[in-house]
């Protein structure tokens, strides 16, 4: 696995750029562990200060130091995306491997459910949850709900790989050796789908953080919890752009774009690594 990463960094410029972008954002987010201020407090410093040596990212109209505010926001958003990705990976691996390996009616039923989830537009559903839960809607609840909608695409992908694995020699050996279905799936098949799991992991984070931003911007999450989305929400509600506090909007947008492009490049280059046909193309063969 490490060799794979080393090769990717060395030969795949997209992967290297993605890694650098995501790395910067992750380091920035980790700085929040050393934050001198509590990001949930307001009016801890002079409001509306432009970026300077003292306030690197300026301060906002709520009297918060944007540097520490955004650091906490990015940490929360990344943790959120990570949680959704882990949870939805578990569902997609379980469904994908089971459907692919068992086949038959189990496969048909699971894929039928899968297709239903694909067809349900998630945004109105999330809004509905917010509408019902209102302020009880915290990050973890949101992550759970989104995990329930974030698996079907990848489950299908994993299933297609599992279908191919089913007829391979080693599977037959394992079955003859008396391995239980659960063991075959976890010990024999899981390693084969791990590359897909990693690549879709990035895509899934992209998707969930993006949705969180969207919901938060509209005020449909817990707006007192600093995240990328709520940072923009507060900036909007104070009409930051209109009153000239541009750094309140521009800096988080730049950081956010870095995060998204970084994650996307990682996902894309890992995807190419998995699909050898596109790798050959890259080498000019």
């Amino acid at each position, binding site marked *: 696995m490490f060799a794979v990463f080393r090769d990717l960094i060395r030969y795949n410029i997209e992967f290297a750029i993605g890694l650098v972008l995501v790395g910067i954002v992750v380091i920035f987010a980790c700085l929040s562990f050393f934050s001198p201020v509590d990001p949930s407090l307001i009016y801890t410093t002079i409001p509306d200060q432009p970026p300077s040596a003292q306030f690197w990212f300026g301060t906002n109209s709520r009297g918060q130091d944007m540097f520490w505010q955004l650091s906490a926001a990015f940490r929360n958003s990344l943790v959120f995306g990570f949680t959704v990705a882990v949870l939805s990976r578990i569902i997609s691996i379980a469904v994908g491997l089971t459907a692919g390996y068992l086949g038959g009616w189990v496969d048909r039923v699971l894929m039928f459910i899968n297709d239903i989830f*694909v067809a349900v537009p998630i945004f*109105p559903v999330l*809004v509905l949850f917010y509408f019902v839960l209102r302020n009880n809607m915290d990050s973890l609840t949101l992550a759970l709900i989104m995990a329930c909608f974030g698996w079907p695409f990848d489950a299908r992908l994993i299933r297609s790989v599992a279908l191919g694995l089913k007829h391979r020699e080693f599977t037959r050996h394992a079955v003859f050796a008396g391995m239980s279905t659960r063991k075959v799936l976890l010990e024999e098949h899981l390693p084969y789908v791990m590359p897909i799991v990693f690549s879709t992991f990035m895509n899934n984070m992209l998707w969930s953080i993006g949705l969180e931003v*969207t919901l938060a911007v509209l*005020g449909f999450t817990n707006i007192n919890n600093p995240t990328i989305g709520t940072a923009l929400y507060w900036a909007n509600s104070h009409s930051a752009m209109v009153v000239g506090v541009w750094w309140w909007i521009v800096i988080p947008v730049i950081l956010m774009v870095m995060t998204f492009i970084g994650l996307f490049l990682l996902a894309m280059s890992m995807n190419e690594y998995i699909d050898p046909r596109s790798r050959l193309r890259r080498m000019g063969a």
Partner: protein
Amino acid sequence: MHGYLVFVGKRLLQLLAVIFFGVSATFLVTHLSPINPVEAALGRMTARSVSNPEAITAMRAALTELYGVNEPIWSQYINFWSRLVQGDFGPSLLAFPTPAMTLVMRALPWTVTLLTVATLITFAIGNVMGGLAGYNQNNRFLKAFGLVAIGIQPIPYYVVAFILLILFGFVWPILPISGGFAMNVTPGWNWPYISSVIQHATLPALSLVLVGFGGWFLGMRALVSNVVTEDYVTYAELAGVKRTTIVGSYVMRNALVPQLTALAMALGGVFSGTVITEQVFNYPGLGSLLIDAVNAGDYSLVLAVSSVSVTAVATAIFIVDLLYPILDPRVRAE
């Protein structure tokens, strides 16, 4: 023909299942929560100083009848469906006493039009450019186009829409940034109205296109660079078949087949994007209606918008799925 009918039947079954599960989920989410919908809605209504007692009494009656909160949940569920089939979600709170369904039906054409036009443009631009980029891999312009696609594609709808809003609202105000049409025109089949509608739809559509085309571009480019190595393409090139025919009917045509499946799968996401875009540009569609309804605590309207959008998206996916066998003769035969 028989094969096609079986195919349609299967898809229709799936469509009904999606609508059934989607709408049931809508019901469950709202009914399994500890909040009493009637009192919550009324409380929010009075909190927003809508204190017309007649409205409140009518509302309480309507809501209690609609949600039947005193009955067991399964009978509430049956009641919910029987009303839903008639398209009756009760009166809207936002514009009492207009039925929620009327508001939804008023907003639906705006969203459907915006979504359809933007999706068609996005799909066309992304696939044509992506196809060309896959076929002419050394073309510099198309390479640059690919970089732009990679750059914009992962950015959330909201941010792109917001950047456009700033660009065209403050920096270079040439396009209207809010509403569905200008105040001074009369809706109808007259040119001032139509041109006003087109102008107002430009920015929302542009933001949808900008975010959307990258995915199609990258997908098509990858597909085409696989298809060009297929024997039938090499053979057609060897036979001196016209280049335009090769690119169109041999390469792109084959690469388009999986892209159509992708379109069906992407529609749900595009719908979510439309909701945001409408909000940013204050566009009078379902998205704006949904957000207004949530903010006003309008229970019936939220339920109506959710149910209708689940149904609409599922139907759109169904229609795209029906096109699939037309594009791929191999499906027809099965």
